[in-house]
């Protein structure tokens, strides 16, 4: 055998060996932290500096900003206490003489076919990671607590996640713009501010916990090696062309799903932020706030949640009842913010077709 043939044979053998076994020894990617950076203009930077220099004016205590009485009396012929002489104790009338209300299960509702969602949701916004509140951030009481504080909107602005200026019709203008209402995001405070904190010192009493180190990516399960079943003797042996076609199909997939490169950290963060904007833990019990729940779901190519694909994969840290509430809050977040479809790169559909999100409320607990 000639030297050239030998070299060629060795090179081909090496290539085939690498193709067969190279992947086996592929190491896990090392964990790395990614910090997103927002690009701002010099004018914005100057404006920020100017704000830092200006003295903070504490919010006036205001009279509690509380709504009116919790319950409106409705047609209750209740005696006015002042009008009563009440020299003697009045026998209280039990509101319900019956010892215990009967509880009867109502038969379950028939299945309802859900119509496609038509909710007008704001577009998914690509945002940087939440910036921890600095010393110049003035905590203010607001109904909403969100990672990113939001200034009170202008009084005439309608609440909307997307800020848009007001455009009114200008009769003299040559080019008429479409009229639109002014909208602004709802006011949000970076943390819960109690009356005690608000009254004494505007400085935050507690600092947010440092971000926990991200967990290492879960190791991929080793592919199970199973012996191929013996071919049925009656089936005809596949031809060479079939073997090539099979190999091509297996290597290239079905051919209908664009794979593309992996999602960038920015694209992943955008998805994370999109869901977190609807992950409302305000109505969860303290027990449910101890539950870390993992939710899996599938998306259609246009970023909408596949009906029936939402499922709870795992939960830790609480009772089954608390886990159920935590899962339902997570489910609401995924469905609500994905009603219009998540804004994900279509050319990487295979990368985000199936998603698993771990909802960890540790930083949102009442402390």
């Amino acid at each position, binding site marked *: 055998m000639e030297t050239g043939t030998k070299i060629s044979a060795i090179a081909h053998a090496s290539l085939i060996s690498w193709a067969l076994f190279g992947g086996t020894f592929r190491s896990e990617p090392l964990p790395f932290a990614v910090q997103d950076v927002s690009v701002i203009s010099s004018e914005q930077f100057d404006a920020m500096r100017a704000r830092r220099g200006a003295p903070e004016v504490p919010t006036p205590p205001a009279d509690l900003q509380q709504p009116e009485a919790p319950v409106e009396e409705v047609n209750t012929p209740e005696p006015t206490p002042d009008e009563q002489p009440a020299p003697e104790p009045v026998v209280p009338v039990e509101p319900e003489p019956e010892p215990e209300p009967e509880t009867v299960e109502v038969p*379950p509702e028939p299945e309802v076919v859900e119509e496609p969602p038509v909710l007008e949701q704001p577009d998914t916004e690509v945002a940087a990671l939440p910036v921890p509140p600095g010393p110049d951030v003035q905590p203010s009481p607001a109904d909403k607590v969100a990672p990113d504080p939001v200034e009170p909107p202008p009084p005439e602005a309608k609440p909307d996640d997307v800020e848009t200026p007001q455009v009114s019709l200008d009769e003299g203008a040559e080019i008429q713009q479409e009229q639109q209402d002014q909208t602004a995001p709802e006011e949000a405070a970076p943390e819960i501010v109690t009356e005690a904190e608000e009254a004494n010192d505007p400085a935050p009493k507690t600092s947010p916990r440092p971000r926990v180190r991200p967990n290492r990516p879960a190791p991929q399960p080793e592919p199970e090696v199973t012996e191929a079943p013996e071919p049925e003797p009656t089936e005809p042996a596949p031809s060479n062309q079939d073997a090539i076609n099979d190999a091509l199909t297996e290597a290239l997939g079905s051919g209908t799903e664009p794979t593309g490169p992996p999602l960038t950290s920015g694209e992943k963060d955008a998805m994370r932020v999109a869901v977190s904007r609807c992950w409302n833990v305000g109505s969860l019990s303290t027990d449910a706030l101890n539950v870390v729940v993992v939710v899996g779901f599938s998306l259609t190519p246009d970023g909408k949640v596949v009906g029936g694909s939402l499922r709870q994969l795992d939960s830790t840290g609480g009772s089954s009842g608390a886990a159920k509430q935590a899962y339902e809050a997570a489910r609401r977040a995924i469905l609500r913010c994905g009603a219009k479809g998540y804004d994900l790169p279509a050319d990487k559909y295979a990368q985000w077709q199936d998603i698993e999100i771990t909802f960890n409320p540790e930083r949102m607990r009442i402390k």
Partner: protein
Amino acid sequence: MMKLLTSLFVGLTLMASAPVHAQSGPLRLELDEGIIEPLPFAVPSFVPDGPAASQYAQDISRVVAADLTGTGLFREISSDAFISRVSSFDAPVQFADWKAINAEALVTGAVNVSGNRLTVRFRVWDVFSGQELGNGLQFAGTTDGWRRMAHKVADQVYSRITGEGGYFDSRVAFVSESGPKNQRRKRLAIMDYDGANVQYLTDSASIVLAPRFSPTGDRLLYTSYETGQPRIYVLDVGRVRQQELNTQEGTMSFSPRFSPDGQSIVYSLTQGGNTDLWKMNLASGQSVRLTNTPAIETAPSYSPDGSQIVFESDRSGTPQLYMMPAGGGEATRISFGQGRYGTPVWSPRGDLIAFTKQNKGRFHIGVMRTDGSEERLLTASFLDEGPTWSPNGRVIMFTRETQGASGRSSLYSVDISGRNLRPVRTPDGGSDPSWGPLQN
């Protein structure tokens, strides 16, 4: 053979090159930050089964909505925004219409009236998943009890969404105050948790203080100056029959509280100028001393399991909070912050202790862990005092008094997160609230 080798080579080469970008599993993300805001919900007016039920249907749905909104955890969507109407309890819900107005939860119901018998059916829906939360339920009672049934519906809705028990079908005992500060008339009163249905249990002939519900809500302990000296009385709430407890003659007894089993009480007794804690068995009337120090010990409160008592003592020089075994013994100080601490009350969940704190001329209601850690002040004013826990341990009610000769006492409530501070409407002024258990 050559063809086979060729196909094998082509296949392997493609296998080696193609999977560089292939997805090896689902995209995995972790969220550790969300938002905290009231959950938007809709309560369309319940469907009446007949003309007689029409007003009840409307009133019950309004009370349910008010209960939920009052927690601060929910925000009602006005009926003006509704796209679809619920005209039949069993009709399929048009989820798209409720999604369009951003309602995350929907409560539908129906009311039937037959004679003086009232029946309420309801369902709770998770709008965005199109699923029912729990099963439909039905409550039956009399028309007089329509408010209680509304509270029961609201308790169920609250429980199904938050995962913790409700507190709407409960009552609060308090001292109703009227008249100027120097001539104040005080009467023992009881009301629904939201200030409705106020009823008076005593007249204003003598000063009454600090009512305390029994664990089952059928009895009240309170302190009265009927004899000139503060003495402890127990009152049967159903029959409005009071009885003085037989503490020692010539002494002052006050600040009583029931044990979790309702069989005994713990209270303060002043004898010879010294105030200590005592425990009385209600069946036998026998009292035993729990503390014996020259300091003032008062405001005892049991842990929910009855094994510990937290109380206030000035043995270290200023009033602070201490904890000791329920049978007496060595006490451990648990409050170490600046200022004076008092009126500790153990949460029904057992995890927190609410207290009054005075510091730098202001009063606060706060909570801390049972070991004294993680102290958080929830309120601040000229005078806040006397916290009491809701049955589910989520809300604290307390007394707030305004400054000056015309200062007025009134009741307030606040969520344990410090949010949703709001007044509780009472016909007159109010103080010393005691939140009773959920009613059966």
